[in-house]
């Protein structure tokens, strides 16, 4: 049977071009989603089994089983099943559901720490290989770190770096496997490989990359073959298309434990296959939903083995299997298809869940039923996030996905070098303390000490500029070290095989603590702040003698300071030489690490006490946005996306009552709020609709709330999986609820 039967368009047949294929073949769906089907009997039974397994996992302390015998590799495991009779989409990371992979490529110490935390001994033979014969990414990076890099890392000035775990963030264009089959893809890669000359490091480096990718594709074919699927040819029907796509993703998560392993934007693509089968009556709606439900079940079962320190940073075992829905095509048609609804409908068929991390690409031009449907679902589940398609599309085109939390990436065209973030608040304290760390007193860089009893705005800002310049050099050089070695020792052949051979590269820098810094600078600028110094001469306390504006109240005086800091830091970063000519991008994003970063940071001039959590992402500090949500959104929207292309994360929480008197009012009001925020050029928003009482109750009685899902910064998490500290921080966040 011709796998491409009934498909339109010519360009995509000759060379890899998913956007062209979709443009010619997808059908927008603009009506009410009355067609949606409940889960099939098979799905229900399968999901019940999975839920039992996940209960066992929870009871076992978070990890059900670890395979210590095998090294992460796509063909390392024989096929695994949950219940073969019930599975219409097959494939597991290992040979059993929820059994976790040991992944020593990133670093051996992390494997040991993760195993030790579970009282398991890793295989001695494997240890010998990865400590004696085979260098790991982690070891390689630390061998070349300078003392200055180690110091900045150890003091928490540069934090969360992917120097001990997979950097993630890469989205393979998994749609390529079902559309073209592996033979076609391998031929294309070989053409790329042979077309390169051998004259310098750059081209030989690329040749080695492509050779690795080809090997990855071949191994992927072997893995799928063991499950009885022939990936060498294109998929011929919807089941195969979804199965092929999942195998391609599975190959990636078998080998890579990247922090974020996102899926992309698959609905319009899969919809083309589903619609063809539905029209041919070889599939009915229940069958179509069953395929999507079962794909989502598989995505919900993906696990990685982490260390306790990692869990503290990124709570709740997140994978960032981010999948986007919605968006507008460059030809003006909505990219909404029936399958976008089928994806969203899994939240009802299978219940709310943090994964996959469902992201709505939002526009006022989306069909009204779709807007209402997604907002209803966001209110019901607190499991959705929204990104501004009108802001992103002009820069990334219409075939992009969201990587990790909030970062747009062109599918199959871009890659990202993930770089976590610097702690801007600690950097400010360095400026105030003459370059000394406020906790240890260590001298980090040489800048003039401030001696007056009161902090002088001009002197503080001049010092801060010096710190930020120094930090941009150190940060970019650290990133260069990390990604050179990551490419060399922990290369993501499976994902990169499904991205163009010489893609656009982004170096994804990030900042944390922006609102603390803006408020602190505001205090120094607009009132008198007394510096309380200890016997070492380190400023450990601050006394503001008057009122000053806080970020989050639509007050340009302080909002402008936030923008000033971002612009200064980004301009400095953009001047640095970057590995493989990557383009610098920046995020304002913390995930749940705002708690840990706060813990490592002394008191700040804004009145925040030492150790107190930062606000998440780009949020105003807890309780300081006194003028209500619209004013807060206006402040957020002033942060310039054009220099923060890696994303500006805003987490918004409101009680149902404050959102409107009736359910339909709530939907309309929330739509209007998001339109307002995005119309003002806001980039991203997490929507939480719950009351503080619910969270407090869930903290006291976690057994009653196993599925309570909330959006933190850029991902969703089961509330009960957060640490107590993180739960308290979430509860302390501003929840708009005014009487």
């Amino acid at each position, binding site marked *: 049977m011709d796998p491409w039967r009934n498909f339109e368009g010519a360009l995509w047949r000759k060379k890899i071009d998913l956007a062209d294929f979709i443009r010619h073949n997808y059908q927008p769906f603009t009506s009410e989603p009355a067609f949606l089907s409940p889960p099939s009997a098979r799905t229900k039974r399968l999901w019940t089994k999975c839920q039992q397994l996940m209960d066992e996992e929870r009871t076992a302390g978070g990890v059900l089983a670890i395979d210590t015998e095998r090294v992460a590799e796509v063909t390392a495991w024989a096929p695994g099943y949950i219940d073969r009779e019930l599975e219409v989409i097959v494939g597991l990371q290992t040979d059993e559901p929820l059994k976790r992979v040991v992944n020593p490529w990133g670093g051996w110490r992390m494997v040991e720490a993760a195993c030790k935390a579970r009282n398991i001994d890793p295989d001695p033979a494997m240890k010998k290989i990865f400590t004696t014969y085979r260098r790991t990414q982690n070891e390689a990076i630390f061998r070349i770190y300078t003392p200055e890099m180690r110091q900045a890392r150890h003091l928490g000035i540069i934090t969360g770096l992917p120097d001990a775990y997979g950097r993630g963030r890469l989205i393979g264009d998994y749609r390529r496997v079902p559309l073209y089959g592996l033979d076609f893809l391998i031929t294309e890669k070989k053409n790329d490989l042979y077309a390169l000359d051998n004259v310098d490091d750059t081209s030989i480096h690329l040749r080695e990359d492509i050779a690795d990718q080809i090997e990855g594709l071949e191994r992927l074919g072997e893995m799928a073959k063991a499950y009885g699927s022939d990936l060498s040819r294109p998929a011929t029907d919807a089941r195969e298309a979804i199965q092929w796509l999942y195998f391609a993703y599975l190959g990636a998560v078998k080998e890579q434990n990247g922090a974020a392993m996102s899926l992309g934007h698959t609905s319009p693509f899969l919809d083309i296959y589903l619609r063809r089968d539905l029209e041919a009556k070889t599939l009915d709606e229940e069958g179509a939903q069953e395929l999507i439900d079962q794909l989502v079940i598989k995505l919900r079962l993906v696990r990685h083995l982490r260390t306790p320190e990692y869990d503290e940073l990124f709570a709740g075992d997140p994978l960032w299997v981010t999948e986007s829905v919605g968006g507008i095509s460059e030809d003006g048609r909505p990219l909404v298809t029936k399958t976008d609804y089928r994806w969203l409908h899994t939240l009802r068929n299978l219940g709310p869940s943090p994964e996959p991390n469902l992201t709505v690409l939002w526009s006022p031009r989306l069909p009204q039923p779709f807007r209402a449907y997604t907002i209803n679902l966001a209110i019901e589940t607190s499991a959705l996030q929204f990104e501004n398609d009108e802001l992103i599309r002009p820069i990334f085109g219409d075939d992009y996905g969201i990587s990790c939390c909030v970062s747009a990436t062109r599918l199959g065209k871009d890659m990202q070098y993930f770089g976590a973030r610097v702690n801007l608040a600690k950097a400010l304290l360095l400026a105030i303390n003459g370059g000394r760390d406020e906790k240890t007193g260590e001298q980090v860089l040489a800048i003039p000490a401030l001696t007056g009893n009161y902090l002088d705005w001009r002197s503080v800002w001049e010092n801060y500029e010096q710190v930020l310049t120094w930090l941009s050099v150190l940060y970019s050089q650290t990133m260069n070290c990390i990604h050179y070695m990551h490419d060399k020792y922990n290369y993501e052949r499976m994902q990169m095989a499904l991205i163009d051979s010489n893609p656009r590269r982004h170096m994804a820098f990030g900042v944390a603590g922006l609102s603390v810094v803006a408020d602190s600078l505001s205090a120094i600028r607009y009132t008198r702040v007394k510096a309380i110094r200890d016997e070492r001469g380190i400023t450990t306390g601050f006394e503001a003698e008057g009122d000053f504006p806080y970020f989050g109240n*639509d007050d340009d005086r302080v909002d402008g300071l936030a923008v000033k800091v971002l612009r200064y830091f980004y301009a400095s970063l953009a001047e640095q030489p970057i590995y493989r000519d990557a383009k610098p991008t920046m995020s304002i994003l913390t995930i749940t690490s705002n708690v840990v970063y706060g813990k490592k940071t002394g008191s700040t001039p804004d009145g925040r006490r030492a150790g107190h959590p930062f606000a998440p992402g780009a949020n105003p500090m807890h309780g300081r946005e006194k*003028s209500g949500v*619209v004013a807060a959104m*206006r402040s957020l929207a002033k942060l310039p996306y054009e220099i923060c292309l890696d994303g500006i994360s805003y987490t918004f929480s409101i009680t149902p*009552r*404050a959102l*409107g*008197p009736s359910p339909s009012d709530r939907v309309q009001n929330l739509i209007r709020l998001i339109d*307002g925020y995005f119309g003002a050029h806001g980039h991203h928003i997490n929507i939480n609709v719950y009351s503080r009482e619910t969270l407090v109750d869930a903290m006291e009685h976690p057994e009653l709330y196993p599925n309570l899902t909330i959006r933190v910064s850029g991902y969703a998490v089961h509330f009960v999986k957060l640490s107590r500290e993180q739960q308290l921080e979430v509860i302390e966040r501003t929840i*708009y609820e005014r009487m």
Partner: protein
Amino acid sequence: MVTRGRIQSVQSFSTLDGPGTRCVVFFQGCPAGCLFCHNPESWAAQGGEEIAPEALLLRLERFRPFLQTPPGLTLSGGEPLFQPEFALALATLAQGEGWHVALDTCGWGPTDSFQQLVQGVDLVMFSIKHPLHPEALSKLNPTSVLANWQLLSNFSTPVWLRYVLIKGWTDPPEALTALGRLAKEIPTLERIEIFPYNSLAESDWEDLHRDSPLFHEHSITVTETEVRQAETLIQKTAGLPPRLFPAFART
């Protein structure tokens, strides 16, 4: 001529201070001194921020794209009647730009100013503190408040009556019956909102190192059921149409 006024703060988004989605301007200064006030910071006549109505409206205009059409503006406080020229200037300007303007008031103020403001807004939300003995809970002059309430029947401006139910203070049947009688007098009455007392105010008072005798009483809060019972009583004894009590005012 510029009529500058004093405001305590601006709330950029509310669904609880009138119909639709609205901004709320909290005026600085209120003479009422209600024992259950949720905004005691706004009492002092001085303080707050001095601002011209034009500048204030410009600030509010920034919030318009986030609000439903028409955007709502509620003048609250503090007590807007305490700064009548400023309140009227702001209301007139805002109405001219298409805002739906509501006046949230305790009704204590000079009759002339009150009449002018009532005619200059789209909705009056009149908080009756106690229909018989407001002096027990506040410094309100019962005669002045009652006179202003009755004036409302001379105008076409829609009216919402707001009432806080406090156990032992505002919930005796004779008080509720009297409230029903007052409600009955106003033909333009659109809604009666009965709010259960909540203790949120107490921390605001503590912040100001103030104390209210109310907070020393035990169990002055009421349940949802009691709110519903009070509504039924008001509605039945005065023979009011049930539509005046929208379900959402109870949640």
